[in-house]
């Protein structure tokens, strides 16, 4: 089968155009994937940072709690020592009163220490929950954003591809029509030329056949009659 050079060129140009479109599409898709990967990595880093921060806060809270307890112990020991010294000098009531006061203070300090520790724990837990919620929210946001971007990109590419296909199809159809018209014109011209050639060949053959079918006598008679006709017309006499 012989393909018309013009149609071949159009098909080649269409293939090249579609290849370029697919290349651009693939390139864009790779870029979106890379963005998504980068964001995931960023999220991972943020998670790690949050965990480290929570651990650090816990450590700090525990350190502070221990410091307060130590300080309370130290204060209690000091007061007990002072009370010992007073016992030698004061009466039993005063000693009992002081001991009661010290016990009450010790209990208060323990209670305060426990409340503080609980408050720290609660704060850390709240912080952790907030971090988890933030991370979850970010993950969802990233996911939704990526999905939306992908959807937009997909729609855009679909639209571009369909538009390009329609445009190429339209162009190919137009070119095909032009080629068809040119072919038709060329066909008519060529047939015209062939007719003309056949006509000329027929004319030549007619002459050859007629020439060969004439005898020498026929030819002589034709010459003589022509001469007679010219004389009768009077053309030769008038010269």
């Amino acid at each position, binding site marked *: 089968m012989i393909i018309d050079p013009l149609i071949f060129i159009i098909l080649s140009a269409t293939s090249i155009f579609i290849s370029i479109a697919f290349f651009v599409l693939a390139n864009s898709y790779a870029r979106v994937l890379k963005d998504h990967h980068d964001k995931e990595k960023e999220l991972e880093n943020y998670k790690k940072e949050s965990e480290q921060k929570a651990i650090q806060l816990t450590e700090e809270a525990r350190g502070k709690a221990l410091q307060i307890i130590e300080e309370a112990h130290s204060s209690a020991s000091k007061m007990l020592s002072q009370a010992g010294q007073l016992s030698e000098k004061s009466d039993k009531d005063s000693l009992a009163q002081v001991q009661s006061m010290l016990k009450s203070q010790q209990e208060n300090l323990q209670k305060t220490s426990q409340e503080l520790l609980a408050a720290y724990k609660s704060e850390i837990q709240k912080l952790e929950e907030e971090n988890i919620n933030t991370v979850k929210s970010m993950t969802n946001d990233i996911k939704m954003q990526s999905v939306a971007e992908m959807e937009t990109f997909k729609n855009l590419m679909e639209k571009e591809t369909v538009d390009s296909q329609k445009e190429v199809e339209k162009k190919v159809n137009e070119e095909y029509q032009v080629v068809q018209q040119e072919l038709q014109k060329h066909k008519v011209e060529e047939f015209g030329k062939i007719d003309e050639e056949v006509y000329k060949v027929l004319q030549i053959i007619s002459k050859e056949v007629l020439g060969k079918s*004439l005898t020498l006598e026929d030819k002589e008679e034709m010459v*003589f009659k022509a001469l007679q006709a*010219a004389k009768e017309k009077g053309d030769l006499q008038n010269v």
Partner: protein
Amino acid sequence: MSENAYFSSVRTVSEKEELVSALDHLIETTYQTIQLPWKQTFSKLYSQKTIQLLEGILQSFNITEPTSKDAQTFGNILKVLKTFKVLRLTTSFEPSEAFLTKLHTFSKTIYISILLDIIVDPTIVGGVVLEFEGLHEDYTLNTLIDMAFEKRKEEIKQLLG
């Protein structure tokens, strides 16, 4: 034989040209000191037809062997020959001697002092092209076929198509 009778045998331009050449030669020989019989010399140089024409001319003027005093007579003959008109005929075949004579005889009814100039062209197929004193008439089959084809061109093309 009348004075112009010897010219009636001169039918074509080529015959006339050879005769003119022979007459010029004859005039030259009349002035030569040593003279051979003219026929002995000329028969080697000219065609039988030209020799016969010269014989006829010399007989009509009662000349056996030309001398210098006959030069004037030959000069006059040459002048007469130059007055002949030429009818050019283009034919598709080489005419025979008999047909040439027939054509020349008929042509003399058109103009008495006439010579034929025959040109052979096979492409004209048949018939003749006449050229005489500026007149040009085409009676060829080639032209007739062309005209017939041209006239019925569309009809023929339709038959071909």
